[in-house]
């Protein structure tokens, strides 16, 4: 699956970004990419469910319960 970063630019200048089809620590590339594209500072960030997923041997994402609990 293709991986994306979806960006929303609101009329008040607020920018919201989310990763799509990324799981686990590959989500962490988003701030680096955004920093390269616009001069802005991050004022809020949160983990979405896909951060807590890992890819199993079949290439499918599965929830990493152990990590989520910690």
């Amino acid at each position, binding site marked *: 699956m*293709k*991986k*994306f*970063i*979806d*960006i*929303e*630019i*609101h*009329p*008040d*200048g*607020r*920018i*919201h*970004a*989310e*990763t799509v089809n*990324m799981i686990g620590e590959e*989500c*962490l*590339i*988003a*701030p680096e*990419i*955004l920093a*390269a*594209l*616009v*001069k*802005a*500072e*991050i*004022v*809020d*960030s*949160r*983990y*979405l469910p*896909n*951060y807590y997923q890992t890819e199993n041997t079949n290439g499918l994402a599965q929830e990493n319960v152990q990590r989520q609990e910690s």
Partner: protein
Amino acid sequence: MSSGLELIPLGIALVGMLSQSARARYNDLENNQVSAEASATLPTRMVDPHILDDTLGGLPFTVEKTPTGLSIALSTGVLHLDPSTGGNFHATFNRETAEEALDALQQMESRYSQLFQRSLAEQFLSNAQTAGMPIQQVDSNDGVIRLRVTVS
């Protein structure tokens, strides 16, 4: 870090806060002069002459850069914006024309917001193109500009 982010561009426009606060104070005063005061983060990009020209063109303003910020001369008074005071500004209008001046300020807010949003989108598109990063604008009709960056 995360997969969901909120960012505030450097120099975000908060002119709306200025004009709304100004209107609130305007109604409180009874003397012949109307004093409007507000405190907000000054949109630093406003001092960019290009942005100013695009934003204020056609509106009843004359804008001059001053050593400390901006001086916006309306037909009805003068508005000083001074970044050195942390974004505070003070404006004095004649009572008879204050309403007109504040309406003009709100027009400025609206036009500036649209331009600033468009400017941010162009910044994303241009920088992505320079970096060889595929990016496309996604159709939307709710006032939000949506972009999608493909990550290899």
